[in-house]
């Protein structure tokens, strides 16, 4: 809808623009034909009134044409009609759209039942419209349909769709618009039930027959006294079915009406009454026949039901028997299973008990054996004691004598051991002496260890061994090597013989130069100068008195002693070891005298 409106608006705008363009072109052609009388840029005061758009410098010709007095072009359509057209178009389109929608909806509702429901329920006024249309359609189809209300007291016979019925219409008549020919909507169920002919009264089983029984009409079936006594009367046995009273009543009324209207004479009515009597007789016969058949059917059905019931009972009994059998089998199976379980458990218990009992018996046997062994041992001990007290009593004397012999033997052994240790000590001391006198350094560690071992707890030997310097374990230099190293050391000592204390480069150079001028000494000169000391040490070394040479060198000082430190250490080591060897030799002699 909006789209349609917008399209229309755009179309109108385009039309407006086209008209303006046309107007401007016409004006321009006028301008070209008529020379301008006014100067461009000075528009006349009337220009803005004729032209709705404001005068701009780009349209000077338009104002000039307006001021020139030429006939103006037709003005563009004012905006007011535009709005009126728009509103009119809107109303028109709404009306057309509504008509289409409602018309299509009604048409489709008449055509489709589902849409009919939807339309009548949700579309406003849809139900009324559909009702009107349906009413008109019905009127068109059935123009003589009874819109006129029936007379209240006039009974009438109506023909049902399913055929002839004895039922009165007057009670259920609601008007022509609720009939099946008017609406396809399903009728009320109670109404349809009433239309169905109920089963006959003698049958007691169906409860539908109860509402059919209408005992209110118990008066004689000759309902209406005819105005004309000559008229035939339709008589019906009302004991068969009292509900047929209405039919009889309506037929009699029909007779009266026909007679009044003069449409039929008494003869026709008599024939009609006779035929109706035949029909009623036939109806009674048919009804009796129907009742008989119905009763037979009911008996057959009762027989069938009884047979079925008996069959079901038999089946049920068979099922009960089968279930009973099944449960019995299950019970026996379960009992057998439980018996097996208990049997296994009993066997296991018996086995375990056997094991426990046999173990206990074994333990008792072992205990009896142990008791027997103990008794036997006691008996042996007792026997031995008896023997000892009697025949073996002299063994005590023998034991005393034997102990004396043992003590003597121990003394002898001790003496022997001491002597052996002394001999070993002498042996070790001899090896130490020979090591010291060897022409090359001999390792002293094993010899010292042997002496320590042999010496045992002798304090002197232990102290002497502990006093051996650790540096001497690898051996000491022999005197010859000490003398050779001293020969190498002596020139170095001579070089620094004149160095004063805290000397510098000049002091050392001077000492080196002036020491060349010193006299060399030999033998054992007296004096504390370096040359005398060196001469005495050398003489001692030649004589093999290492301790003397060491003492002489040790008397040096300053750089002289510092240069001789290594030689002094070696000499001291040898001197100490020689002294300790002498001490150990003296102790070895003491050992010889002691033991």
């Amino acid at each position, binding site marked *: 809808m909006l789209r349609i409106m917008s399209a229309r608006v755009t179309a109108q705008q385009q039309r407006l623009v086209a008209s303006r363009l046309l107007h401007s072109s016409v004006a321009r052609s006028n301008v070209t034909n008529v020379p301008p009388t006014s100067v461009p840029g000075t528009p006349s005061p009337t220009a803005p009134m004729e032209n709705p758009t404001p005068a701009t410098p780009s349209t000077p010709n338009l104002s000039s044409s307006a001021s020139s007095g030429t006939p103006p072009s037709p003005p563009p359509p004012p905006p007011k009609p535009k709005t009126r057209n728009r509103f009119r178009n809107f109303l028109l389109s709404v009306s057309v759209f509504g008509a289409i929608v409602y018309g299509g909806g009604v048409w489709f509702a008449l055509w489709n039942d589902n849409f009919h429901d939807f339309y009548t329920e949700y579309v406003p006024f849809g139900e009324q419209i559909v009702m009107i249309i349906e009413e008109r359609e019905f009127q068109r189809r059935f123009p003589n349909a009874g819109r006129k209300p029936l007379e209240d007291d006039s009974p009438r016979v109506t023909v049902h769709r399913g055929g002839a019925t004895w039922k009165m219409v007057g009670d259920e008549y609601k008007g022509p618009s609720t009939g099946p020919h008017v609406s396809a909507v399903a009728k009320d169920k109670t109404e349809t039930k009433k239309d169905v002919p109920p089963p006959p009264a003698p049958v007691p089983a169906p409860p539908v027959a109860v509402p059919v029984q209408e005992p209110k009409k118990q008066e004689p079936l000759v309902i209406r006294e005819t105005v004309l006594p000559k008229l035939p009367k339709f008589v019906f046995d009302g004991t068969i079915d009292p509900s047929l009273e209405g039919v009889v009543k309506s037929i009699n009324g029909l007779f009266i009406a026909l007679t009044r209207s003069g449409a039929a004479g008494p003869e026709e009515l008599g024939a009609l009454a006779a035929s109706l009597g035949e029909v009623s007789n036939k109806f009674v016969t048919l009804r009796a026949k129907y009742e008989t058949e119905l009763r037979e059917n009911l008996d057959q059905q009762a027989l069938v039901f009884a047979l079925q019931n008996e069959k079901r009972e038999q089946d049920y009994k068979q099922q009960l028997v089968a279930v009973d059998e099944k449960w019995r089998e299950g019970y026996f199976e379960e009992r057998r299973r439980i018996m097996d379980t208990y049997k296994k458990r009993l066997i296991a218990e018996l086995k375990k008990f056997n094991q426990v009992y046999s173990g206990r018996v074994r333990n008792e046997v072992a205990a009896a054996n142990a008791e027997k062994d103990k008794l036997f041992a006691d008996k042996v001990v007792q026997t031995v004691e008896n023997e000892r007290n009697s025949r073996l009593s002299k063994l005590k004397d023998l034991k005393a004598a034997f102990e004396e012999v043992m003590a003597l033997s121990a003394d002898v052994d001790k003496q022997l051991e001491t002597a052996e240790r002394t001999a070993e000590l002498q042996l070790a001391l001899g090896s130490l002496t020979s090591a010291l006198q060897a022409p090359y350094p001999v390792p002293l560690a094993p010899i010292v260890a042997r002496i320590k071992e042999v010496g045992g707890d002798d304090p002197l030997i232990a102290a002497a061994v502990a006093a051996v310097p650790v540096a001497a374990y690898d051996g000491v230099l022999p005197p010859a090597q000490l003398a050779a190293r001293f020969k*190498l*050391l002596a020139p*170095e000592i001579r*070089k*620094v013989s004149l160095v004063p204390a*805290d*000397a*510098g*480069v*000049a*002091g*050392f150079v001077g000492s080196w130069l002036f020491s060349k001028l010193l006299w060399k000494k030999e033998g054992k000169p007296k004096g504390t100068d370096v040359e005398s000391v060196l001469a005495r040490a050398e003489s001692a070394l030649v004589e093999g008195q290492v301790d003397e040479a060491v003492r002489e060198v040790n008397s040096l000082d300053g*750089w002289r002693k*510092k*240069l*001789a*430190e*290594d*030689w002094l250490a070696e000499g001291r080591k040898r001197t100490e070891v020689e002294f300790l060897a002498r001490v150990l030799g003296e102790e070895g002699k003491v050992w010889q005298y002691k033991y």
Partner: protein
Amino acid sequence: MSVVKKTASEQLLNDKWDVVISNTLVKTALGFGFGVVTSVLFFKRRAFPVWLGIGFGAGRGYAEGDAIFRGGDAGVRIVNP
């Protein structure tokens, strides 16, 4: 780790002499080098800056030699092996 053999006591002085002489030579050479550079740069290649540098270097070596003999380690940098 290599084991440094201890110098024998009679070789102590010789070691010191080695250090002193080498130190003096190095310092003298340094003085000579400075002298040459100074002579070239500032004194139009005259000889006296060279001699002066040599003197300074030798004097420095002598002084450090005295210190070395007296038990110090002046001018000598002991590099751990």
